[in-house]
């Protein structure tokens, strides 16, 4: 019988790994093993990401277009408010809708992905209590699915720029490393918040409000130059400030990035990520008991 002979083959062929399970404790060796395991499960991360994208658009008429609708309609609303009702002091010559859309593009990516990733563990109770896999895959898959949405919504920006006759410069290529820094910030925040949400559902309740405040604390609807000089240093402690401002600058203002601003964001991102991962892995073991 083919089944038994195959099993017998794999019996000889693959070397068996010995795994020891003990009460959870912290050690650098474990973190290394955790990262190796995450790599082993990369197929699951990709499958789940594809699954998120598919499920999101499966029974909706507009389908993938929904990725565009949100930032685009927000852009229309804010343009209406800030050019006709309350006037925002803009420094450059770039039309306001474009200034807005470029910032809303990455802000929407950040806030939608963070919201769904925060619920990533809680919304998969059926998996978390029944099967083992590295749990960080759940929040991470939302981050990746968000990146996909970002890619979908980006061409509209180019369309808008052509429409308004805004030139694209070589500096636009800086958008890629900036998006990378943003992804690192997003990943760290997702790891910490999703683990915290398991213990305190208040996190998920408070998040929409926090994101609203956070957006107005970031240069989304106004430029960073509108922030008074004496608050600027404090303002930049928000990692999203440097990211949003410079994403806009390189894409639609055809200017080089401000490396000082961006450096602060990058530094915060790089320091925060390992801390977030360690926090997540430390609480991971107990998730199935608490959830």
């Amino acid at each position: 019988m083919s089944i038994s002979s195959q099993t017998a083959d794999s019996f000889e062929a693959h070397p068996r790994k010995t795994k020891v399970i003990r009460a959870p404790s912290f050690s650098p060796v474990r973190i290394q093993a955790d990262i190796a395991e995450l790599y082993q499960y990369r197929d699951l991360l990709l499958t789940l990401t594809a699954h998120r994208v598919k499920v999101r658009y499966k029974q909706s008429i507009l389908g993938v277009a929904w990725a565009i609708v949100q930032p685009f309609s927000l852009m229309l609303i804010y343009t209406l408010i800030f050019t006709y009702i309350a006037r925002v002091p803009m420094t450059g010559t770039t039309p306001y809708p474009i200034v807005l859309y470029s910032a809303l593009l990455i802000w929407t990516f950040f806030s939608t992905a963070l919201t769904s990733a925060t619920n990533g563990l809680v919304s998969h109770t059926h998996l978390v209590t029944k099967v083992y896999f590295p749990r960080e895959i759940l929040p991470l898959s939302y981050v990746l699915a968000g990146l996909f949405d970002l890619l979908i919504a980006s061409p509209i920006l180019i369309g808008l720029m052509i429409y308004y006759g805004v030139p694209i410069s070589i500096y636009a290529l800086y958008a890629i490393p900036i998006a990378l820094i943003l992804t690192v910030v997003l990943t760290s925040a997702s790891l910490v918040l999703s683990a915290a949400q398991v213990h305190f559902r208040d996190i998920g309740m408070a998040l929409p409000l926090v994101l609203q405040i956070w957006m107005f604390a970031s240069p989304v609807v106004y430029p960073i130059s509108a922030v008074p000089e004496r608050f600027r240093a404090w303002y930049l402690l928000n990692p999203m400030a440097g990211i949003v401002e410079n994403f806009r600058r390189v894409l639609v203002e055809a200017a080089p990035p401000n490396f000082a601003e961006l450096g602060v964001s990058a530094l915060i991102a790089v320091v925060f990520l390992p801390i977030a991962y360690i926090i997540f892995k430390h609480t991971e073991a107990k998730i199935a008991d608490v959830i």
Partner: protein
Amino acid sequence: MIDLKFANVSKRYRIRQGPEGATSENRLTRTLKGLWKPRKEFWAVRDVSFEVERGEALGIIGHNGAGKSTILKMLANITPPTSGEIVINGRLSALIEVGSGFHPELTGRENIFLNGSILGMTRREISAKFDRIVEFAGIQQFVDTPVKRYSSGMYVRLGFSIAAHLDPDILLLDEVLAVGDTAFQTKCLKRITQLKESGTTIVFISHDLGAVERVCTRSILLEHGEIQAMGPPDEVIAEYQARAGSTSLPPPLLKTSSLLSNEIEITSFTFRDGDGNEMSLARTGDRLTARIEYHCEAPVADVVFEIIFHTMDEEVICHFLSASDRPAEDIPEGAGMIEVHCDELGLFPGMYYVDVIVRRADAQPGFRIDSRHRCKNLRVDPGKQLRGLFYSPHRWDQPKPIVPSPTLVADAGVASEPKVGI
């Protein structure tokens, strides 16, 4: 060669107790008060040690809450032990609940890939086994239909099929056979046996003691998180039943309920065979008598007795209601008993738990005079051989024609011959 090792493994859960009458307070004050209170400790598993050799099939049996599932979840790395050490030698796959990784919006095909990768397979491995998985589950026609349109049977078949085709070194199975129809259960058992013969180590949890006996080479009996017996399955199962039978009326769960009026107290509940001897093992098709003994404090009119057979998972299988074929009883003061007789027991092989209820005929739901939850269990072994879902008492005969009329026979004879002249 040892594939699995449990060394002095314990698992403690802490339950934070809210103060009495907590319903009137909001959650914040309750949580804050709870912080000051010592948390109640509960040991789901205590100092358990065992080893499983390669190719062995270990069955774990015990009551609900005995710690079986906690052991399986620790093996599957879903929850960590509080102390002790677990050593796993090889690739392990656990089927804790069939179909738990399915997404209803996705098709069968997409779900096979999703579920397979959750269980630790790579895309390539899944592709290689795809056809066999679909064929085993018998869902060829529906592979591109969203699983939300599947019947529950198809759902279960697909879930088991994926897990059974992983070719793990160690396979954990929790109650996978509790679902699905009999034909599929047989197919599953066959596949499990096949895996065992090809060298897969198996840990099996089931309430179906017959399946444990058939599949397993060794068995563990758990009670209150501790190992009570370990050895050949038939001996361990016998031990389990001896223990279950010895406690005739364990403290009932609902006894403290304020909905009990308590004029009548159930003092004993027993099963008896055709000769009136007490027993706890029956065969399908056997004669069975169930006897409720009670003590009545004050006369009560219009009383109804109920006996409910249910599975471990509280699924009601059979219900006997005394008022269904006779008027409700008027119970005088003092001790008494009532019996229900089954000429041919219809229950299929398995383990059943019994609830006994005494109530007024016109009582509101939940209002009872006395009630005993899981006060007895009944093991049913295969008796009159059968297929299907249940046994219905029946009898066969060959009815003879009432009066074999010669004219009719003659007519028939004529009719079969070509009639000349017409």
